[in-house]
């Protein structure tokens, strides 16, 4: 179980990691990278699944269903567009 200070440590280290990973990125990759990080928070899908798996009342189930639809859209759509953008980046191999 994650509690108290352990959670705080995870939060801090993850925050530094995100900052460090991005800080050395060339501007040419900003759009794909924003799209890539947009895909990464698609992990919200697993949370939406858990919430839906535990939903009881029709209201909860309806909201959770919507949540899973939206989360799947975030993950799949984020992947589709990021991959499309990145596959286009080519080098001119020694032409310069």
């Amino acid at each position, binding site marked *: 179980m994650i509690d108290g200070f352990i959670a705080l440590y*995870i939060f801090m280290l993850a925050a530094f990691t995100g900052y460090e990973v991005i800080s050395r990125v060339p501007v040419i*990759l900003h759009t794909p990278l924003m799209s890539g990080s947009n895909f990464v*928070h698609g992990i919200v899908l697993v949370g939406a699944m*858990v919430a*839906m798996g535990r939903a009881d009342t029709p209201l909860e189930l309806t909201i959770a269903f919507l949540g899973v639809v939206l989360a799947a859209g975030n993950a799949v759509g*984020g992947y589709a567009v990021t991959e499309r953008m990145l596959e286009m980046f080519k080098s001119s191999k020694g032409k310069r």
Partner: protein
Amino acid sequence: MGSLGAGTAIQASYFVAAALFILGLKRMSSPVTARSGIVWAGVGMVVATLITFLTPGMGNYGLMTAAIAVGGIAAWVTGRRVAMTDMPQMIALYNGMGGGAAGAIAAVELLAGEVHGFTVLTLGVLGGLIGAVSFTGSLIAFAKLQGLVKRSFRFRGQNVVNLLILAGAAVAGAVIVVQSGGTQGHVVLLFALALLLGITMTLPIGGADMPVVISLYNALTGLAVAFEGFVLNNAAMIIAGTVVGSAGTLLTQLMAKAMNRSLANVLFSGFGETAAGGAAGPAGTLKAIETPDAAVMMGFSEKVIIVPGYGMAVAQAQHKVWELVQALTARGVAVKFAIHPVAGRMPGHMNVLLAEAGVPYDLIYDEAEINSEFETADVALIIGANDVVNPVARTDKSSPIYGMPILNADKAKNVIVIKRGQGAGFSGIENALFYLDHTRMLYGDGQAKAAELVQAVKAL
């Protein structure tokens, strides 16, 4: 499988997924490894999603699978089809969906009374609030860039109204936390106000500032996901959400800086209010040039720097421009691309558009790399760019774009501007570059003029 075994397998899978996300993002930070980066992260996502089906004590599997199929297929189809020029608004749309999902998790958990303890309740409420704001805010950003909403709705005291809505949501949230759960009415009120806030916050913001806003909502969604991760005790969500939250915040700052705008300025005031005053037009006249002369100028140069802007992409001229580069290179002319951070609709968007046309990324230079080279360039070819090459940003303190870093195209020995007509740029500011003595205007459609230039250069 016992619940302990399943529990361990799930934790291990989430650990692997979190590691793959970070490694994937790391690989995405270099053009050489970027493609594999998204694949690594994708593998992590598939692993995490599949293992979640094994979570003990869950039901509704049929509906859950249906929901994943509906959302996934719709997003896949739209994501594969969208034109590269429309990429920014699609990112906004998918990001908004993530925010909505985080909000939905918070709503379900709060309605079910599953959230206990002051800290977890606070994080759950905050995550729900942020997620819901990001949801409607991103949808408005999408609608604006897609051209569905054309006006910027501004009225006096809009900041006060937004503040009141936020205060209302905060009170509802506080009641939920203090009463350890609150009533259904409190939860509904919290989310209704949060959804409304996303709309009223985003509507007044102009289209030019949208990239910064999209990036901000991306960071906020990450944060919301992390907070809901605390509620669900899910390490993968906490780590991935926090990484995106901090990375997105940094990216937002970089973008705002490149546009010479502070984040507060973007969010709390409208662009164009100072521009409306209208400074006196620049001195000099616009001097036109014909295609054959422009081709001769470039064909007999040693070095040409091309400055593309969003106008080039709108005219779908990037393929012809790349042909022009190849024709010039064949004659021994050194050609480079100079990209301003805000060329296109968000930083890096122009690079994507050029990459789509087949331009190798090592011919493309950003403002800091190439600005000193303009002085040695024989020709600077401006196509579809305007404000980012306007020298008044360096000289005229009264100009709204004063202080914005620009490309020093005016320092080149000759400047050729391909432009459809004589109008001002996105910000409505006259461009002093066009009136300089060594600037020539090549009027016409970007794609048609680029195609004519290719023929003319080949015929030299």
